[in-house]
């Protein structure tokens, strides 16, 4: 085929000047390749650096977690050990009423300990993806009234008020036990950080395809700098404040995980010295689903 008649390219004799250019281009191409390689190495090393930092942070978090867990578990244990040995050692010198007080304190510390263990187990179940939810479509009006009445018995020093909308609430799609757990946890927080004698209002409102439940207290509130982090695991504001009511900082993290696992959302608003409102939503079930659930039960 003739040189000038090739359909795709032209072949021509290279002049010396062109050869010089070609060599230069070749060198440039090589250089570019090396740069790309270097960039790859740099990116890999940055990635490794990031991983190292993450690992270091994780390791710090882990040792912090261990120390918090150990402290929190030992605190109720300290009450149990102290009061029980006192009852054993000084039995004859203690009055009946005093003994009764110590037994009550042992009982409360045992409950606290078992609650802490439950929280830890739930968290690790959730981390391992082993948390199983038993979702049902059910009416919760009565359930909510019972839950609040039960919580009121635990905290007679506070006024818990349930503000339900007029008429029936739509059926909710929930895991009843986990719903109970979330509400209990939020009510505990609401009273733990409030003065005795104050009000805690539980309000339930129906939105488009969800129900929003809010818990409003008149407590000390959360500093604005901390609001974004209160749902983080092991994040506790009070550790650096006086009158720390204690805790592992797992409660809100667990509530968030449980609400989200049920298809809802959770968030809060707070003003220092005024109070906090925690809101969470749960999805509404359809009438058909309710019918199925009722038939099944």
């Amino acid at each position, binding site marked *: 085929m003739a040189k000038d008649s090739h359909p795709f390219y032209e072949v021509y004799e290279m002049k010396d000047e062109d050869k010089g250019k070609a060599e230069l281009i070749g060198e440039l191409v090589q250089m570019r390749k090396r740069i790309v390689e270097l960039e790859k190495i740099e990116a890999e090393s940055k990635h490794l650096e990031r991983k190292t930092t993450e690992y270091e942070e994780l390791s710090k978090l882990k040792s912090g977690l261990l*120390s918090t867990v150990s402290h929190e578990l030992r605190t109720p244990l*300290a009450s149990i050990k102290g009061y029980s040995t006192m009852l054993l050692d*000084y039995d004859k010198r203690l009055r009946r009423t005093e003994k009764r007080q110590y037994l009550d304190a042992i009982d409360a510390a045992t409950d606290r300990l078992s609650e802490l263990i439950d929280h830890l187990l739930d968290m690790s179940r959730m981390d391992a993806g082993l948390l199983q939810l038993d979702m049902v479509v059910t009416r919760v009006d009565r359930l909510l009234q019972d839950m609040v009445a039960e919580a009121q018995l635990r905290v007679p020093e506070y006024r818990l008020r349930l503000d339900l909308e007029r008429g029936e609430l739509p059926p909710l799609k929930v895991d009843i036990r986990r719903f109970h757990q979330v509400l209990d946890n939020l009510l505990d927080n609401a009273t733990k950080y409030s003065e005795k004698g104050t009000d805690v209002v539980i309000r339930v409102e129906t939105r488009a395809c969800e129900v929003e439940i809010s818990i409003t207290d008149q407590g000390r509130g959360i500093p604005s700098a901390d609001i974004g982090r209160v749902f983080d695991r092991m994040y506790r504001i009070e550790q650096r404040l006086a009158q720390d009511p204690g805790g592992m900082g797992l409660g809100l993290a667990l509530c968030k995980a449980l609400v989200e696992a049920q298809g809802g959302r959770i968030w809060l608003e707070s003003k220092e010295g005024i109070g906090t409102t925690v809101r969470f939503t749960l999805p509404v079930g359809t009438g058909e689903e309710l019918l199925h659930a009722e038939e099944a039960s």
Partner: protein
Amino acid sequence: MLKKHRKDTILVIEDEADVLRFVCRVLALEGFDVLEAGNSEEGLELVRRHKCALVLLDLRLPGKDGWLVLERMKSETSLQGIPVIVFTASAGTQQRARALSMGAVDYLVKPLSAADIRDSVTSVVKL
């Protein structure tokens, strides 16, 4: 268990109400006069105002922690001579070494029994 009134005053600094009540009651049953403080500021104020034979100090306190109380007590001339027994929920050996090197006479790890308190205190405050 001794019922004799020793008249020695012991100050207990502890923020956990249950532990504070338990430790103070054991000391009172052992015949000591007991002062109690729920935080470090209150504790330092009491130890400066009263003649204490011994201080029982929790290392993990809200606000300024117990380490600061220990440091202050060992640096203020009028308080240096008062023995301090520290107690904490952390069993770490480093913490123990640090507390002892800072001048604590004993390091107790919670949970504590009535006997732990009794034995440690009576080994420091002699009859």
